[in-house]
């Protein structure tokens, strides 16, 4: 009965609804973007009313929020954090730097396109995006989750080799545990 397709649908609907309204965010506060998170969470914009709250460790988090440029050095940590998170998990790229490198497009040690390395579900544009933009981005993410389309993790699992190749290209000295959820 559990494996029945319709009941699976119901289960999916319920769990997606729950996931949608309970988003525990692990903010990876690189760069200048981290300063936009406090106003988002506090009284003025109050993201908690949407069920968005901070998570302390990757194990508990649903969303990895990358707030700014990633150097090759921090990219390694971000990948590590992402792989430690438990399914279902989502990545939100925050700010121009994660989209195309932003003002650091020609830097010798920042990556420019995040989605080549991690499966980004939602990008929030801007340099910096204001809390309204952040909330709108999370709204988009909620919408995707609700529709069951926020399947970055699945994508990452399926195309792991491609992602790994990209990652290893910038991180030649690869000493990390194997990822095999």
């Amino acid at each position, binding site marked *: 009965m559990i494996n029945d397709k319709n009941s699976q649908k119901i289960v999916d609907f319920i769990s997606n609804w729950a996931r949608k309204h309970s988003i525990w965010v692990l903010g990876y506060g690189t760069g200048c973007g981290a300063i936009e998170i406090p106003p988002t969470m506090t009284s003025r914009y109050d993201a908690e009313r949407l069920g968005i709250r901070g998570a302390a460790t990757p194990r508990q988090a649903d969303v990895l929020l990358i707030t700014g440029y990633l150097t*090759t050095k921090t990219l390694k940590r971000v990948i590590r954090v992402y792989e430690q998170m438990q399914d279902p998990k989502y990545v939100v790229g925050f700010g121009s730097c994660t*989209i195309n490198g932003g003002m650091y497009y020609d830097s010798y040690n920042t990556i*420019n396109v995040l989605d080549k390395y991690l499966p980004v579900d939602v990008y929030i544009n801007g340099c910096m995006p204001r809390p309204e933009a952040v909330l709108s981005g999370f709204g988009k993410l909620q919408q995707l989750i609700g529709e069951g389309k926020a399947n970055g993790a699945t994508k990452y699992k399926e195309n792991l080799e491609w992602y790994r190749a990209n990652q290893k290209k*910038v*991180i*030649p000295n690869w000493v990390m545990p194997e990822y095999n959820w």
Partner: protein
Amino acid sequence: MQEKKIKNKIIKRVKTNFKDARDRNDFKYNRLDFSVKKEIIPSVLFYLKDEMGFIHLSHISCVDWLEEGELEVVFILWSPEEKIKVFVRTRLDRDNPVMDNLDMIWRQANTYERELREMYGIQFTGLEAPDEFILEDWQGPPPMRRDFDTEAYSNETYFHRPGREDAEDVRETITKRSGEDIPDFAKKYSR
């Protein structure tokens, strides 16, 4: 006036001890500048620290004289008593930049030397420190040298989202669109 006297005294003492030290004394403020050969750098620094009271190493910096084929290492010292800082410069061969390790004089020199090693490729003989400092897994040439083309490197190493090639200064367009003037302060930064 007082300052000038002290500065002159310092110059005199340094020059008597180190004959080939070239000095520059045309700075307005409490600053002195010596250029010496790299062989006597340790003795100069020891002298300045122990005899003259320049006990604080503020920074070790580097200038890339690409045209002259040399790297100039700059030691910035500070005397808390005289309130005077001294720049000690030395020039290294750009192709084979080697000089002595100095972290026995100031422990903090170790950090600066690691940075210079990583960023300029200067080898300090006898420096004991892990190879990696700021750049993890770096495999390219020393990135702070002037002949290193960071954009080319970035293009070669990292992915680029298409569309940035034809990105122009959009401010003019925006101005035309909305009929606004570019503010004066913004013009300064305009391409």
